[in-house]
């Protein structure tokens, strides 16, 4: 049997969940002995591959690019893990949801800018009207809350998944941290 294909990525998040993933320290070697990391910020592959066994997605769905990415990831992933509070609740990125996007652009690119007063539109992803949790866009198999989830819980979840089990996360981590 070949190694398990493992991918990670982030959408609208701060990368803190990936920092916490790196906090598993030398145990990442145990992960690598059972899995190949086929996509994500830890490795250098440009496109999301087909037939991935487990994907951890950090961050919420905030732009049309995020939306495209998460749909492609879902189509090519067996077990999708909603990784951290932004992915699960929209969390901090969701705090813009109380305002229309035009007000946000006004604030960011006009009120708070000294020069070049204009909203960038070319070559960048476009904001959706609201930031939404991943599971409101695609089906999610496992939820790993926390801001960020603790490294030990991340390692536990990965280990269980790599051995083909569904991790029981009851009581192990919560919204917030």
């Amino acid at each position: 049997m070949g190694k398990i294909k493992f991918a990670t990525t982030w959408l609208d998040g701060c990368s803190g969940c990936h920092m916490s993933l790196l906090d598993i320290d030398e145990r990442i070697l145990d992960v690598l002995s059972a899995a190949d990391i086929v996509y994500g910020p830890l490795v250098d592959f440009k496109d999301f591959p087909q037939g991935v066994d487990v994907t951890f997605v950090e961050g919420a769905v905030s732009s049309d690019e995020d939306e495209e990415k998460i749909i492609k990831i879902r189509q090519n992933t067996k077990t999708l893990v909603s990784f951290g509070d932004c992915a699960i609740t929209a969390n901090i990125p969701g705090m813009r949801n109380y305002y229309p996007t035009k007000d946000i652009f006004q604030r960011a690119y006009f009120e708070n800018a000294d020069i070049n007063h204009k909203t960038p539109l070319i070559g960048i992803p476009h904001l959706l009207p609201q930031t939404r949790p991943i599971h409101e866009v695609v089906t999610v198999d496992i939820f790993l809350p926390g801001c960020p989830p603790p490294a030990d819980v991340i390692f536990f979840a990965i280990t269980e998944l790599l051995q083909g089990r569904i991790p029981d996360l009851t009581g192990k981590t919560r919204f917030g941290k």
Partner: protein
Amino acid sequence: MKKVSQIQTLVIDGKEVGGRHDETILQVARENDIFIPTLCHLDGLTEYGGCRMCIVEIKGMPRLTPSCTTLIREGMVVTTNSERIMEYRRGILALLFTERNHICSACVSNGHCELQGLALKLGLTHVEFPYIFPKMPVDATHDRFIADHNRCVLCSRCVRVCHEVEGAHTKDIMGRGITARIITDLMQDWGESKTCTGCGKCVHVCPTGALTEKGKSVAEMEKRRQFLPYLKLMRERS
């Protein structure tokens, strides 16, 4: 004539227990170390029965019943944690999370919050209902306290403690259902209140980060509730 307490016996989760006739199912369960989750209930305040976290099944009754407001009866058979009950409790919690903006990671009560604690305890890892993301006000007009309506669960503990214990009745609830909101006096800024004594009891009974002390950063707000059973006991004695 002195009122005589009657002892009544009942079964909770298969365990034979007894209590006084004027005790609630919740009280008797707690005396017998049977866990029932609660949110609006707080020892020392009158029962409100609003949050529905403490619902239980009573044999012969089709509907689920809040255990905090239901008195025990002889021969009752009560179940506190069936799959049906747990599903309802998680559903109620999920609705509370969607109705306001409980962003735990950026909350002064992170780690000390009863809503967050219940989600952990009941295994709520995500919310199936779509989040509403309502735009809610924050009242920081008081010198020492903040009311953040983003984090309020309308448990009414603040209303009850202000009325029943402090005797000021500064806090109340305005509106209905999902649009209901805790108000100060006749919906005035807290800092302008003529009735608020500044005692801080409301802040310390609040289960979430809705009422907090100023000057606290993320996860720094720990509530102190020891005063409440003590005050109640001393008043009953005098």
